[in-house]
């Protein structure tokens, strides 16, 4: 276990170095940060002077070495736009994204599990066929179409939920700004989390269905039937438990999709989270913030994968962690 975590830590280190190198290499292609700081009529001479002061004229290696030196002391640069340490800026936006993702995942679990089970147990039933059909369509609709449709129907036509922003928030534990405990905050959460959930649900419905119908064919389930166990016990205890193993793994892989989808959802709903922050940073050429965001997300991936492997081990103790995943 300890060896496993240690290896993962080293792995994380490599991932972060690779990400920082790549994000540094592309910075030059993103545009000129100085352009974003000055008006149109500022003379080229003044702009050049600013570039010099910011160290943007130094070579790639000089700039990277400076960045790496600071990063080792915990300083990941200062955002050009927010004028605050990049990590602080990102951490301030983390709660919004976390709450959005959390609600979406909750909705996915609540919708996908029963639907997946129904279609696996009774594949020929009309409802099952309908679910499969809808999920096939759902798979092929991009999330921004879903989101725009939701805004049009629920916000513009029926006026049921706000179309943008996060609404009223309260501060928990002195640091966590939460929208989960106010009525206004929850109503703002409704459309974005629903869009995110709708985009992710079809994959999981189909996944649960295929995994579970495979499990239901297996020897031990037939044995369980012949032993006279009750149907719910077979379905929800014996079959579902084994279905969940691959789902957890794939769910972990889907975390990447989730990050990408939150960026899109947050942009459309003007959700003040990390994804929106990132898109803004790209359009403002806020390069320190872009690098820091990529590193934070990279770090989150490593943590997420580690967690998935740990949960895997809990659900199925025969999996040996130390040899797994490396």
């Amino acid at each position, binding site marked *: 276990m300890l060896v496993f975590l240690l290896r993962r830590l080293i792995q994380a280190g490599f991932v972060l170095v690779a990400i920082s190198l790549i994000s540094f290499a592309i910075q030059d292609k993103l545009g000129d940060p100085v352009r974003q700081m000055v008006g149109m*009529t500022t003379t080229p001479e003044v702009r050049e002077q600013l570039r010099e002061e910011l160290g943007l004229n130094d070579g790639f290696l000089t700039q990277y070495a400076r960045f790496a030196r600071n990063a080792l002391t915990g300083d990941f640069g200062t955002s050009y736009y*927010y004028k605050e340490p990049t990590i602080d800026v990102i951490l301030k936006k983390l709660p919004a994204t976390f709450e959005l993702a959390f609600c979406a995942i909750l909705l996915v679990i609540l919708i996908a599990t029963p639907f997946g089970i129904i279609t696996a147990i009774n594949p020929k039933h009309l409802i099952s066929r309908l679910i499969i059909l809808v999920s096939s369509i759902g798979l092929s609709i991009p999330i921004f179409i879903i989101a725009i449709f939701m805004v*049009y129907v629920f*916000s*513009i036509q029926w*006026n049921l939920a706000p*179309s*943008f922003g996060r609404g009223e928030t309260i501060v928990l534990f002195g640091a966590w700004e939460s929208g989960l405990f106010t009525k206004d905050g929850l109503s703002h959460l409704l459309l974005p989390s629903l869009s995110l959930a709708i985009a992710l649900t079809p994959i999981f419905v189909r996944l649960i269905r295929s995994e579970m119908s495979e499990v239901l064919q297996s020897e031990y389930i037939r044995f369980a039937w012949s032993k006279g166990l009750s149907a719910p016990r077979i379905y929800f205890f014996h079959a579902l438990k084994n279905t969940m193993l691959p789902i957890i793994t794939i769910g972990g892989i889907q975390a990447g999709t989730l990050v990408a989808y939150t960026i899109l959802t947050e942009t459309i709903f003007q959700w003040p989270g990390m994804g929106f922050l990132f898109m803004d940073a790209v359009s403002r050429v806020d390069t320190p913030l872009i690098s820091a965001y990529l590193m934070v997300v990279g770090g989150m991936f490593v943590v997420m994968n580690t967690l998935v492997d740990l949960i895997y081990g809990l659900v199925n103790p025969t999996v040996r962690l130390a040899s797994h995943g490396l």
Partner: protein
Amino acid sequence: MKPTVIIVACLSILLSSHTLSATLKMAFDADPISLDPHEQLSEGTLQFSHLAFDPLLRWQQNGTFEPRLATHWQAITPSTTRFFLRQGVTFHSGNPLTSADVVYTINRLKHSTDFRAMFDTIQSAKVIDDYTLDVSSAKPNPLILNIMTYVFPMDKDFYQGQDEIVKYGETFASRHVSGTGPFILEKRELGSRMEFRRNPNYWDTSSPGNVDKLIFTPIRNDATRLAALLSGDVDFIFPVSPIDIQRTQKTAGIQLVTMPSTRILLLHMNQTRRQEFKDTRVRKAINLAINQALIVDKILRGYATPAGQLSPNRFLGHIADLQPEYDLTKARQLMKEAGYEQGFRVSMMAPNNRYTNDEKVAQAVTAMLAKINIKADLKTLPKAQYFKEFDDRSADIMMLGWQSDTMDSNNLFEFIIACTDAKTGLGAYNASEYCNPSITDDIHQANQELNPERRLRLLQGIEKTLYQESAIVPLYWQFLTWAAKDKVKIQDIVNDRNYPYIGDLIIEQ
């Protein structure tokens, strides 16, 4: 007192207090990057300046000046103007406004990297007494009043000693405000929200404005911004994209207000990169092949004015006769005469998120150029990358939009037409690399010509030469498009610079 009188009195108090409390939620596409009004010369900053600060004078919808913190002014010598300040005005901090504050502000502007280009012409500002000051320029300055619209007096006692202007770091001024404006900043979340409440001590008590609370949210995405208005989450938005205009107009309870702006869209044909563009006949042919009216009609849905010159009609250099021409036969004829009947290949670049429908306009232009056998390889880029390429002048044809800061033709000529001079910044956006010394002379001349008649001749002369030589391709002047709920009377407070005077906004209850 009779009971009815009392009832009427009570009712009127009730009603009047009612009209005084209105909340405005507005969503524009950008917010100020800093609370320091001198850190960046951008639309967002100036919109903010009109909320938290007050200018000495400001533009009215009809293009004339309206006195604000300066009640009147007079020229005492050709290069010196005396300004008389309004008395009894206080800053949000409680300090009274005096001419020392104005002088302090002008000196600060002279040190700002962004405003320096304009304020370099001002040599000194001198306190005469508490409410009088003299502003002098080195040479006679015909645009002194235009420039003074950028003077939003800052609270000297509040800022002094901690007032440095830094482009990439936090300063006192970028986090704290004390102006004289109609609104006091209450809360700010950079990039996502600003909240203001009305200044209870605002000097302009005759202003009909009844906005008590103002919530400002920058929403960059066009669809999200419009959805926010249509769903009732905000009351006032800018801009509305052309594809949404029709829909906005059809929606009950929503009004659309449009106004021609002075921003010109144009194409540069780089004469250093391309031998062909050195030939006036080729440049003329390109001008003739591009159908401005069609672009405006089809791509901008009529929300622009086709341009045959740089100066819009409210500028001095404008010549009514210079209309855009479209004549394919003549264009082909000219190409043939120049020896390019078979045409040639050029590279072209345009932004894809800077101006309204910029990418589509650029695509239309390439199609039009193809008709005279010029094959343009178009590359469009987001503005962050585009202006880097523009500075490098890395394509043969490049698109540019320009809004004159001084509301004067000469500003266009200085940046777009004058021979490039890295030191003074003259011709910084002259990606045509067109250089005509006599025009550059005229530009210098116009900067200090006080006689309106002679100045008019100079500016129109430049415009005429550009037209004759087909130095550039003027495309159109963009419209500004705002939308709001019907009860929000924005038509009275918007202007062609897009600094809505929210202090004077009336919201019907």
